């Protein structure tokens, strides 16, 4: 009965097509802007390096900016794009997708259409989930893999392997956001519950990450933050990905997905 699954994946993608298109274009525009600015920035990079060195190391680490070589295109993109703008964009995209997928349909009452059709709840959940993954993949292609054509257009050399690595790490981060969002959405009646719950949790995790860098005794808090495991600069600059990060992010995504699927299958849906 894959017909039902793919029909629903298509429906979800069709509904979110303008959102994904705008996110992709904005991300592409950002990347194009950074890549275009880089040659002139590179000339002044010594001054910027000096400026960055003046900041406390812990503060830079809190923003995932460490061991940077902003004189290289990889280091520059890691600092400018992947330490702040990209995570914000993917969090917004994935949470809005997950929030709309289940809680949004319950809130509007349209879930009744799906529930009255011969498609199981597990399939409804995973078709929406799959659509979210497709959106994430498309966003990653536009926002990360676009580095290749843009670099060649501007005449910059990039480390191919490192770009693929950061794409992997970033996809994993987006996957965690989607899975956590879908999990909360499976329990919720309104989209706002998803946004506030995950938004609040991420804020706390972000604070954990900063505090653990600034206060030695609070160092362990970093392990409770997803931002500790999301290390795009290591991937981009050094070409390294910590296997623990992969395990934690993939594990979190899988656990959230299983909880979400079970909750959605068992819950009452008053539509």
């Amino acid at each position, binding site marked *: 009965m894959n017909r039902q699954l793919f*029909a629903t994946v298509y429906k979800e993608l069709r509904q979110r097509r303008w959102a994904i298109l705008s996110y992709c274009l904005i991300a592409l525009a950002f990347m194009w802007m950074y890549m275009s600015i880089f040659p002139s920035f590179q000339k002044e990079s010594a001054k910027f390096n000096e400026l960055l060195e003046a900041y406390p190391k812990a503060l830079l680490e809190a923003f995932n900016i460490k061991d940077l070589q902003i004189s290289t295109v990889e280091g520059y993109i890691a600092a400018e794009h992947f330490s702040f703008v990209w995570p914000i964009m993917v969090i917004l995209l994935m949470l809005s997708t997950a929030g709309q997928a289940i809680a949004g349909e319950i809130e509007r009452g349209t879930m009744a259409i799906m*529930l009255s059709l011969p498609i199981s709840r597990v399939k409804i959940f995973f078709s929406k989930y799959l659509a979210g993954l497709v959106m994430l993949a498309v966003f990653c292609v536009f926002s990360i893999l676009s580095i290749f054509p843009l670099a060649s257009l501007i005449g910059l050399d990039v480390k191919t392997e490192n770009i693929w690595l950061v794409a992997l790490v970033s996809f994993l981060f987006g996957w965690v956001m989607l899975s956590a969002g879908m999990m909360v959405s499976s329990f919720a009646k309104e989209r706002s519950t998803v946004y506030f719950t995950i938004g609040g949790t991420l804020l706390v995790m972000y604070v954990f990450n900063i505090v653990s860098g600034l206060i030695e005794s609070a160092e362990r808090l970093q392990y409770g933050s997803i931002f500790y495991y999301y290390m795009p600069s290591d991937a981009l600059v050094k070409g390294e990905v910590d296997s623990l990060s992969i395990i934690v992010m993939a594990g979190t995504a899988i656990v959230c997905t299983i909880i979400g699927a079970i909750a959605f299958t068992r819950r009452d849906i008053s539509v």
Partner: protein
Amino acid sequence: MVIAHVVELKKVTKAFGKKVAVDNVSIAIDKGEIFGFLGPNGAGKTTTIRCLMDFIRPTSGVVKLFGKELGDSDKTYKNRIGFLSADSVLYDNWTGQAHIDYVTRVRGIQQNAHELAQQFGLDLKAKVRHLSSGNKQKLGVILAIMHKPELLVLDEPTRGLDPILQQEIYAILKNFRKKGGAVMMSSHNLSEVEQVCDRIGIIKNGKMVASETINGVRQMKIHIVKATFGGTYDEKDFKLPNAEIIKAEKREIELHVKGNLNILLQRLSRYSVSDLEITHASLEDVFMRYYE
């Protein structure tokens, strides 16, 4: 061989925390029968329908459709059901055609949507957000019946429709019954229920307080009796076990009498009656008695 009911709810109870929304409700609907489900807002009609559609799970009791208990995995039975929710909520930014396409893809069976759209005069190319509430309801009805189901579950199917279209829906339902289809419909509209349904169930505070055939309800023979006397009368004479005094004035009395009129007529004969009017109560009056 015992033929299974199309719909069978056995002692279904649904509680939300301490609040019992549906309490020990049992309903059976057979082929070729239209069952009207009546009750005021908050009585438990929609909760019962949600249990039937497997949107929510009963706290206790059994829900069977086509002789089988509702299961988690196999949902193919839903191809045999047409459902219309109370508010007919649709995707605002989709056209009617997009709705039909999606439902057709998931159901994977032949539909007669365009024929119905033509019959209802509905433009399937218009986006739902541009449709009037009546046209949205039309689309909801088309989505519910286009795959020729065996059971229709309709939550207030004619809400927002003009009288001409209401009559069309009634005709569709009667035709559906003629072909052996079963219908469970909730309604506030008593004349609609009287016109279309074979049987009614009345739910009050989550409990089924009555389940009668329409003919049975009509035969309950509630009479409205209005008597005008030549002189004064003693109200106590009319306090009868099967009668309720609705209005008592100096020389006039109005009563609702259930069943036999003999005792009342005996009492009336004690007085000089200058005018007497006896009429059958409407279905609405019968219905309202369950809520007193």
